[in-house]
């Protein structure tokens, strides 16, 4: 099923090297698992989603052809099962992202997390935010006294936006290293160091390994 010829959008050299070794379904599974476990939204895997959709179409064609040609039912059902699984992965991946957008839409739209969304997701986030703002505006904010009507701030005297739900980045996640990372600093002060060896399981704060997840050195499980 692997087709590694398309350009890889995130452009990380390490990912490129790994593409030859593993199939798109594996990659999709990994993207899905990371997305599922990460508290914040991750980079949209544009090229991977595109390839997965092409392969689903191809597979659908194959299954139909098999049914038409009277190929053995068992073989057909195996292909069908493969197809179902890939479709579930793809749908669930996209769904997880939408649900994160639903949850943190305002936070996402005012930080650089915005660039991690696909074009369609950005449209969705924009619409969602408008709808949510309208709803809160007409049911709460417009009925409050002047100075307390902002959706972002508690009152006019707040200096920062203190009413925006944000993902909890210091939550703990289970993660698995893909290669040797070596001695890794867990906090800013450098008090806590951990030696991350290849293929080992860890439970760490998401915040401290965020960078490793983003560049693909560690997988969430």
């Amino acid at each position: 099923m692997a087709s590694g010829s398309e350009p890889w959008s995130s452009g990380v050299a390490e990912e490129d090297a790994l593409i030859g070794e593993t199939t798109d379904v594996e990659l999709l599974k990994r993207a899905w698992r990371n997305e599922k476990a990460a508290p914040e939204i991750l980079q949209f895997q544009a090229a991977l989603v595109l390839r997965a959709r092409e392969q689903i179409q191809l597979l659908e064609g194959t299954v139909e052809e098999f049914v038409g040609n009277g190929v053995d039912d068992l073989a057909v059902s195996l292909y069908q099962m493969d197809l179902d699984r890939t479709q579930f992965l793809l749908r669930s991946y996209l769904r997880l992202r939408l649900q994160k957008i639903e949850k943190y839409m305002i936070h996402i739209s005012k930080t650089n997390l915005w660039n991690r969304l696909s074009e369609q997701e950005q449209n969705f986030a924009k619409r969602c935010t408008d709808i949510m703002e309208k709803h809160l505006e007409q049911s709460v904010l417009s009925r409050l006294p002047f100075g307390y009507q902002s959706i972002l701030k508690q009152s006019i005297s707040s200096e920062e936006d203190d009413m925006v739900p944000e993902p909890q980045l210091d939550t703990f996640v289970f993660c698995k290293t893909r290669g040797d990372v070596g001695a890794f600093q867990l906090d800013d002060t450098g008090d806590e160091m951990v030696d991350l060896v290849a293929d080992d399981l860890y439970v760490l704060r998401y915040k401290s390994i965020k960078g490793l997840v983003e560049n693909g050195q560690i997988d969430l499980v």
Partner: protein
Amino acid sequence: MYGRRASQLLGELAAAETGQLTVYNSDTFDQVIKECNEHNVQLQSLFRKMEEQNLDIQTTRNEDYFGAVIHHLSLARNKRCLMAYMYNRAETIQSLRWKIGKKLPQEIQEKLSFSEGEYFKNHSAAIDSYMSELDLDLTVDMIPPKDPYIQIRVLDDIGEVSLGDLEISLTRHSVHFLRRTDAEQFISQGLMEEFLG
């Protein structure tokens, strides 16, 4: 006591099971809004009083100033509670689109305020337009598939249906063995259920 009603609202949220909606409590909600406006009236009148005495609001720390602070903080707290109430309900309402579908049953609609009803419709439309941009239905395949075929029980008379190359009569209470992809659309409409017996 200031702020008690607002915490009652949140108490209702907390008491409800996750994912379940309680009836929109417009009485308490309106009362809290009223409380907010009363706080504001008090707040403004204290400020006016200080201005009349030619005191600088930024630096003066007398009883009027601290009174005003209490009104301000109570107001801000009430706002937080009101927003939390609305926002958490809105989150539950969002999740209904995924769990139930586009059309909400009567008993749930009755629990929503007017604005919430609108919100559900608009939010639902936003999901639909995302799915049509992608040309992919995301509301099926909610659970990971185990087997391409499942056993289902028909809950309502559906009649003759052609599924692929096979004509099948789906009468009420009958049990069939179908392709999961075929059955899913009926299950999401509530016409069938997975038969695990």
